[in-house]
Each structure stands twice: as structure tokens, then as C-alpha cells.
């Protein structure tokens, strides 16, 4: 699996605020290396956040998302102590899954 992501999830007044920082080069496929060859596109494509098996948020990224993608979203319906699981898959098929307790 790739490098871990950092997840912070905090519940307040029924709304869970989630911040995720993923580790990924997110190559756009636009850059050329020193030899002039195009560096191929390499980027996270889908990100899915789930709590108790239910999807609470989905993101589809293109190569224009910045390196080490940051994502902040909010949702209702979970409580402190529940676990949120975030999965991502990139265009090479590599994936990463991490979880955090909602504080």
C-alpha cells in the first residue's frame, strides 16, 4: 500500500468535520523531465469515505488536484467514537485505506 493519509474527524452539533491529507505526487502528465520526456500522469482518481459501511462522501480527482491532496468535507449521521474509513485508488491501481475515530 502507498503512504498513509492523515485523517482528522471531529463531531460538533451533529456535524462531523473531516479533513484528510493524502500522500501522493499527483503528476498531471503535463510536465517534462530534464531529458525532455513527458512525465506520465499519476494521480489519485477516487476517494471514498465510509462510516459503518455506509458511504458518506465520494471524491473523483483529476490530475489537476495538487500534490499531497487535501480534502475537507462535512456530514451528519455519525457520533463521537464512530470510525471513519477513507479509501483511495489511483490511476495505476495502487490504493490506500486508513481510518480514524471521530472525536
Amino acid at each position, binding site marked *: 500500500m502507498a503512504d498513509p493519509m492523515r485523517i482528522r474527524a471531529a463531531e460538533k452539533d451533529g456535524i462531523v468535520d473531516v479533513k484528510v491529507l493524502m500522500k501522493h505526487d499527483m503528476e498531471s502528465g503535463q510536465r517534462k523531465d530534464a531529458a525532455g520526456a513527458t512525465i506520465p500522469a499519476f494521480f489519485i482518481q477516487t476517494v471514498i469515505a465510509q462510516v459503518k*459501511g455506509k458511504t458518506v462522501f465520494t*471524491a*473523483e480527482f483529476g490530475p*489537476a488536484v*495538487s*500534490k499531497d491532496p487535501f480534502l*475537507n468535507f462535512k456530514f451528519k449521521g455519525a457520533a463521537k467514537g464512530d470510525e471513519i474509513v477513507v479509501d483511495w485508488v489511483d490511476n495505476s491501481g495502487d490504493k490506500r485505506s486508513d481510518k480514524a475515530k471521530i472525536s
Partner: protein
Amino acid sequence: MNNQRRNVLRLTSVIALMASTGLITSAQAAEWNKAAFEGKNLDDVLKAMGGTKPETSADIIMRAPDIAENGAVVPVGVETKLKATQIAILVEKNPSNLAAQFMLPAGAEAFVTTRVKMGQSSNVHALVKADGKWYIATKEIKVTLGGCGG
């Protein structure tokens, strides 16, 4: 012919079963909208997302700087009072317009923030789908240093 049908049915139901039991993650089973991410302009992207002409909405708030010092990392946030089921961020002057899109299931707040690369100063559009209709808000972001390594 019967055998072929049987195999197709078997394969699709196995994948569905695998996804539901978590053997392959939902992320892998999810479709990444390739056509939308290859769209070269707003109309192409909208078409690929099954959308029609969006209505400008004052209810979409875009949180982004007027001037981004580093085009490689431009924070863009979108939030709205509309009952959004989908939000998309497009950078008009980027080679592929669609930077990212977000699907909001029931319970998700219409609020998202991420960071995008901008090749040059450009209009950034926030598209919101609510109640089956599409809405749009636009903000111009000036970039002092382009974000695609050029």
C-alpha cells in the same frame, strides 16, 4: 449463447458481491468519469456529467484567493445552501477543465475544500447539481507562478 449469458451474469454478480462484502473496495468498484476529466471546456465537462446549461446561482459560495501566489497549490472551497448532490470544480484555462468532482450522499453537507493546480490565471467555476438541476458560480483567480511546472 446460453453459456455466454450465464458467464456474464455470473461475472457481474460476483463483482457486485465482492464490492458489497468489501473484498474489493467501493473505490475500485466506483466509476471514475473519464469523459468528464478529458473535457476541454465547461460544455464538454457538463455533457459528460449528464448536465445541461447551468443557472448562475448567488447561493454558491466559492472560498478561494483572488491572487494565488503558487499556482501548484490553490485552495478552493465550495459551499452552498442548495440541496447539492454533486459539486464540481473546473479551471477554465487548464488543459483538462475538470479538476475534481464530489458526490454527496444523503447526510453529506454541501461543503468541500481542496487544493488544485492552475496553469495560469483563470476563471474557476463551481458547478453544483441540486434537485436534478445544475447551477454555476465563477471566480477569477490570478496566478503569479503557474502550477504545471512550465
